[in-house]
């Protein structure tokens, strides 16, 4: 661990490593976190917090709840770090998935408290892009993703965004879009496939 800390300090001292591009990767930081290194955990938080919080807030909407869920996610990352197997996928993907599932669990358990009027809820889910804070260096990448989303058919895009950003199940999406359930499942698949192809399979 000492050697790791020295290495981390050396990396921090290098010019141009503070932008998260040349610095330690999430993989490196998670491996150190798995050995109990709280500094590495802090650095991992710095790299992933905006992604986790933004995604969670997009789904649960309420900032206070988004904070709670974000905390749950990072405490989960800390606890699970010794068990992470890098052969099974990227750290960013793992953390994003955890964040999304917990956000969806939260919004579903909250919304189960009242009879859901999905039609009313759907109107409030559209969120202007200008509310989404963006790092300058990621803006072009984000524009590319939005471009790819824009290339989908309206039904593909709506099926995907209602599910992913609002936490609706495919059955609820079908109800909202007044489409057969089978159609929605197909649109989700085709839409995600096209998004993946458009982004060149990169993650």
């Amino acid at each position: 661990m000492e050697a790791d800390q020295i290495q981390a300090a050396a990396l921090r001292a290098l010019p141009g490593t503070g932008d998260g591009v040349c610095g330690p990767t999430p993989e490196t930081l998670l491996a150190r976190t798995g050995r109990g290194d709280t500094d590495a955990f802090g650095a991992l938080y710095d790299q992933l917090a905006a992604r986790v919080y933004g995604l969670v807030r997009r789904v649960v909407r309420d900032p206070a709840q988004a904070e709670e869920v974000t905390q749950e996610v990072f405490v989960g990352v800390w606890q699970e770090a010794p068990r992470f197997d890098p052969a099974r996928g990227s750290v960013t993907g793992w953390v994003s998935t955890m964040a999304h599932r917990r956000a969806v669990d939260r919004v579903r358990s909250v919304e189960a408290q009242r009879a859901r009027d999905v039609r009313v809820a759907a109107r409030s889910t559209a969120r202007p892009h200008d509310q989404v804070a963006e790092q300058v260096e990621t803006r072009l990448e984000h524009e590319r993703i939005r471009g790819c989303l824009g290339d989908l058919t309206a039904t593909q895009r709506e099926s995907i965004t209602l599910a992913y950003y609002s936490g609706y199940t495919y059955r609820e999406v079908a109800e909202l879009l007044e489409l057969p359930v089978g159609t929605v499942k197909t649109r989700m698949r085709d839409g995600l496939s096209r998004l993946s192809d458009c982004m060149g399979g990169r993650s």
Partner: protein
Amino acid sequence: MTANAHSLVAARALDAVDQADAALVDAHLEQCEFCADELVRLSAATEHLAAIAAEQPPPGLRADILAVIGMTPQFRPRVPTDRAAPPTGRPDQTGQHDGSARLGQAGLGRARPTPGLPGRGRQGGPGGRRRRPGARHALVGVAAAAVLAAGAALGTVTINQRAELADTRAQVTDAQALAASALTVADSAPVAGGGQLTMANAGNLAVVSARDLPPLDAGKVYQLWLLGPAGARSAGLTAGNSRSADWVVGNVGDAEKVALTVEPAGGSAQPTTDPVGAVALKAHQSAGRKQG
């Protein structure tokens, strides 16, 4: 049924499935290598959706989280003998709630032991030295750690009475024991037709464990509810043939008891049948405040 599960892979990648459908798909992924690859590919696409939602969190959150992890033990690394790893290297289903199932973070974990599990001694570390978090966050963290620890234990040990829960608590070590002390054992009750419902709760969190549930007819599921002055709130589902289930419920609020009912597949917004089992939540007296 297979064709049905097959068609749900994209919905699974979007987490757009209820628990019953998720179980269906995940079981199918074990059998279908193509589908598992498809899930990985489509999940990578969802990462782009996550990326464009990025938003800076409030500045105080970092210090709060570092303080909490300073008091939270890490799970032990899985060693190959820990649990049966899926032979094909396909994802297993252990992490349904934390996303680890999708990426298969199980079974084949590194066999290296974790030196110096952080415990109380870590409180003086970088996290602990920063400004103290609000008491609310710290307590939530301790209670969450307790519940996660208990939840992990409940997942691997059959628990249907208090004595066994006490055994489970005895298994957790060091700081985990501290955190587990925040759990209040509420009670255990039989389920009509067979089986047992057990619950422990602390603060706003509860761990509910059902064992030996009688199988239900096709198209029926078990649904867990929080019952309080304001009525019933759904706390989770499990498939009608699942036999056992564990729930970590994070928004107990003013609920007075948990109850299990039989509902149509997909669950109900409100209970439509009488409970087959119910356990009263025990009032909590800030048990987590005892950590010094």
